[in-house]
C-alpha cells in the first residue's frame, strides 16, 4: 500500500531558480514522483489552493518573500496541516537552520543538495506520514 502510494505521490516544490527547479524535477521525477513547481510564494499559494500534495519542498529566498512564511499558512489549514515540509535552502548558518526548525518544518537539506540524501529524505517523510495516516 505504502509503495503504491509513494509512486503516485504528488510533490510541490517552491523554487525560483530555474536550474535548481530543473534539478529537483530530474531527481524526483526519476524516482517516480509527480512534481509541480511554484516559482514564488504567490505561485505556491495558488498551487496549494487547488491541490493537496503529499509533501512540500520549500526554498527560502524567493522573489516575493521568505519561504518560511508559508509554513504557518500550511500548518493552520485543516486540509494541508499534516503535509510534511522539507526545507531546501542555501542559507545554512546555524541561525538559519534554527529559524527553519522553529518555523516548524519537518526536515532541512542544505544546498548544494546531493541526490541520495534528497531522495531518502523525501521517502522518509512520505513513509512517516503514510504510517501516521494508516
Amino acid at each position, binding site marked *: 500500500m505504502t509503495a503504491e502510494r509513494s509512486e503516485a505521490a504528488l510533490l510541490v516544490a517552491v523554487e*525560483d531558480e530555474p536550474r535548481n527547479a530543473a534539478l529537483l524535477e530530474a531527481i524526483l521525477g526519476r524516482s517516480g514522483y509527480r512534481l509541480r513547481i511554484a516559482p514564488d510564494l504567490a505561485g505556491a499559494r495558488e498551487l496549494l489552493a487547488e491541490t493537496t500534495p503529499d509533501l512540500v519542498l520549500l526554498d527560502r529566498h*524567493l522573489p516575493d518573500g521568505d519561504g518560511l512564511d508559508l509554513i504557518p499558512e500550511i500548518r493552520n489549514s485543516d486540509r494541508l496541516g499534516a503535509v510534511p515540509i522539507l526545507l531546501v535552502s542555501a542559507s*545554512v548558518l546555524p541561525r538559519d537552520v534554527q529559524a527553519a526548525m522553529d518555523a516548524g518544518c519537518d526536515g532541512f537539506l542544505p544546498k548544494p543538495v546531493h541526490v541520495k540524501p534528497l531522495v531518502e529524505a523525501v521517502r522518509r517523510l512520505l513513509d512517516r506520514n503514510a504510517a501516521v495516516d494508516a
Partner: protein
Amino acid sequence: MTFDTLLSISLDLVFFAVFAVTLVDWLRNRGPVRRAVVIVFGTIALVLIAPILRLVAPPLAAFSSVITIPAIISLPLVILWLVSYIRRVPRSVLLVVAAVDVVLTASVFVLAAQGVQTRSSTYLAFAFGLLAYFLIVAGAAAIGFALAARERAGASRSRLLTAALATGLVDLCIVVLLAGGLTSAPGSSGAAVASVLGRVLALLAAVGYLVAFAPPRGLRRFSQQATLYAFIRDLTAIPSGSPVEQIWELLTRTVGRASGAQRVEVLEHTRTVPPPERGTRHVAIPFESQRWPDGRLEMDLPVNALFLEDDLDLTRLLVDRALRAAEREAFLVERERLIGDLQAASAAKSDFLAAMSHELRTPLNAIIGFSELLAEDTEAPPDHATVTSYAEHIHGSGLHLLELVNDVLDLARVEAGRLDLKPVPFELDALVRLTIASVQPLADHKHQTVELDLAPVVIDADPSRVRQIVLNLVSNAIKFTADGGEIRVGVSLNGMDGVQLAVADNGRGIPPADHQRIFEAFQQGDGETATSHHEGTGLGLALTRQLVDAHGGSVGVRSEVGVGSEFTVQLPLHRPVQPDAALPPAVATGQPTVLVIEDDPAAGELLRVHLDGAGYAVLLATTGRQGIAWAAHAHPNAVLLDILLPDIDGWEVLQRLKADPLTRSIPVMVVSVVDDRQLGLALGAVDYFVKPISREPLLEALGRLTFTTKVRTRTVTVLVIDGDAEAATRYGQLLEPDGFRVIHAPNGAAGRQRAVTDHPDLILLDSTLPDMDGFELAAALRHEDATSSIPVWMTTPGGLQSEAKTRLNGNVQGVLARGDDALAAMHAWLSRKGSPA
C-alpha cells in the same frame, strides 16, 4: 635697659626682618603694587627707627623727629595710594589728602618751633585733628581694600581682606601711639605700654601686608592647593564618558572665580578671538597635549590685575589637571566609538560572508546535483538529450559561479584601492552601442525593446571598466523588466565637462527605502529577498558604484514601484588630474633617498622592500615623465631606472636626466629585463642590473653611492688622486670649510696606496695620471677588496665621449668635467648626502 625697651627693640627687629623680606620680594619681582607695599613698609620703618636712633646715637635723636613726623603723617596717604592700585580712587581725593598731609606736617613743625605746651588747648586740638585725619584716611583705605575684596574671589579675595585688616591695624597702632603720647607723660609706664602695644600692632600689620602682597612660597602653595583640591573633587564628580565640554566648563568656571578674569574660554583649535575689551589684557595658556596641540585657555584679565603671576601659576595647575582628565575622557569616548565601529564592521563582515555562502551554494547546487545524476551508475543510462541538458545546466551554473568570483575579486580590488584604471580617450557612444549589442539577445528573448539615444561623446576613462558599468546597468534593466518591457539607454553631455549615461526601464521599480541599499554588496532590493532568483550576483551595483567613484563620477537612481527605474551615471569628460603627479610625496629626511622608476607594481614593490630594509627612503615613480619630474624636484641620492616604461622609455629618461644640469649628478642604475649594459653605461648609467636581480649586489652598489650614515658619525675623508698639485688645494678650499678632510696623492701608485691605508670615503680620480690611465686605476680599485666599496668620481678635462663612458664600466659613480659647474655640483652632492654638521 628696661624690659619694655628690650621688647620694643626685639619687635622692631622682627618688623625689619619682615620689611627685608618684602624688599627682597620687590627686588626680585618689580611691579607697581610691590613698590607701593615697600613704600608703606618703609614709612612704618621710619616711624619705628626714631627710638632706636635715640638709643644708639642720642645726638641724632633730635633730628629723628624730622624724619619720623613727616613719615608718620604721610602713612595714611601712602596706604591710600596703595589702594589706588587695586581699586579706583579718584585723583582729586588723593590730591586733597596729599595737601592735608603737607599742611599737617608743616603745622607740627610750626607748633614745635613756637614751643606750644603739650597740655595746651592748641596742642590738644591739633592732636585730635591729627587723630581724626588718621581715622578717616586710613579707615577709608581699609574700606577700599574690603570693597576690592568683595569684587574678587578665591585667593585674591582673602588676600585683599588681609590687607584691609592690616590697614585697620595700622590705624589702631597710630591711635594707640598718639593716645599714649597725649595721655601719659614720657617715661611713664603708660607710655611704655602704649609704645609696646603700638609696636605689636605695627608688626601685625606688617605681617598682614606681607601675607597679602608678598606671601611666602609655602603660604602661596597652601592657598593654591585648596583651590586645586576642590577642583579635583569636582572633576572626579563628572561621570565617566561625559563630553569633554563638561570638563572645559568646570575649568573656565574655576579659573574665572579664582582669577577674577572677565572672560575665560577654552579653545580646542586655533581660531581668532575678539580683541580684549578696554582695560583688560589677553592671556593665553597653551595646552600641552598631543590631542589638542593648538588648544589653549584664554582669559581677559584686568590690566591692573593684582596677583597676576600667582593667578597664572594656579591657572596652569588647573589647566594641567583638566587636560589630563579631558584626555582620559576623550580617550574613553573614542574607544567606545572605535569598539562600536569594529562591532559594526564585524557584523557587516559576517553578513557579507553569510550572503557569500548563500550565493556560492546556489550555482553549486545545480553543478553538484546534475553531475551526480550524470555519474550515477544506473541500469538505464540517460539518453543523449538528457545528458546534454544536464551538462548545459552544469556549464551555465559554472559560468554564473565564475562571474560571482570575478565580481568579488573586482570589488575587493576596488575596496583595497588597487584598481588599476588605464584611462584612454574613446567614443562612449560607440562603446555603449557595442555593449548593448552583446546583451541584445537577452532582451530579444524577453521580447523587450531597447531604445538608444546616444550623443557622440569622447571621454577619457578606462574603456573596459566603463563597459562593465554599462553591462551591469543594462543587464539589470533586462532582468528586472517583464517580458515585452521597454529599456532606454541614453548618453548626453552634462554641462561643460561631464557626461551622463542613463539606463531606464519600465520594470517593477525599487521602493524608496532601498534606493541606497541596492548599491551595497549582496542587496538587490525587496528586503529579505536576496538574489537566488536572478542571474545577477548581487554585487553588480556595488561594483558599478565603486567603478564610477574610481573614475571620479557619481551614480544615482530614480525609481517608482510599478512604474520603472532609471539609473544615471555622471562621468567627468576628462580623467581626473592627479594633483600631486608633478610633485613627489614627502619622504623621511635624514635617510638617503632612492628614486625608483618602475611601472610594474610588483617589481616596484619588491625594490621598495629591499631598499626600505636597508634604510633608504624610497620614491616610486611609475612613468618616465613622473620619474624625471621627481628627480629634478627631490634630488634623490640615486635613481633605479627600468627601461620598459609606459610613456617614454628608460633610455630617453636616462638621457634627459643626464642632460639636465639639475639632475646630471644623480647616479642612475638601470634595473631592467633589457640586457644592454653597453648602451646603459654609454648613456651615463653608473651600473646596470638585469632582472631578476638579487638583493645583495643591488644594495652593495647603492652603498657605494650613498654614505650618509657614515658621514653623520665621523669626518668624511676625500682622496684626490691628481698629477696637478693645485687640484688638491682647490678641492681642499672647496670642501674643508664644510668639515671634509681632503688628502692628496700625486700619481696612480701613491693613490692606490693611500686608498688602502687611509680608506677614504670618496676618491676624486683624474682621468689622466702621470704613471697610469685613470680608467685602469678605477677598475683596479673596484677589483681590490680593500677599496672596492669606495665611491670614485672621475675628473676629466672635458666631457666624456660615449666610448669613454663605456670604459668606466660601472667603476665610477660620477664624472666631473673640469672647468664647468660640475665641481659645485659635486660639492652640493656631497653636502646633500650629509655634511658633518
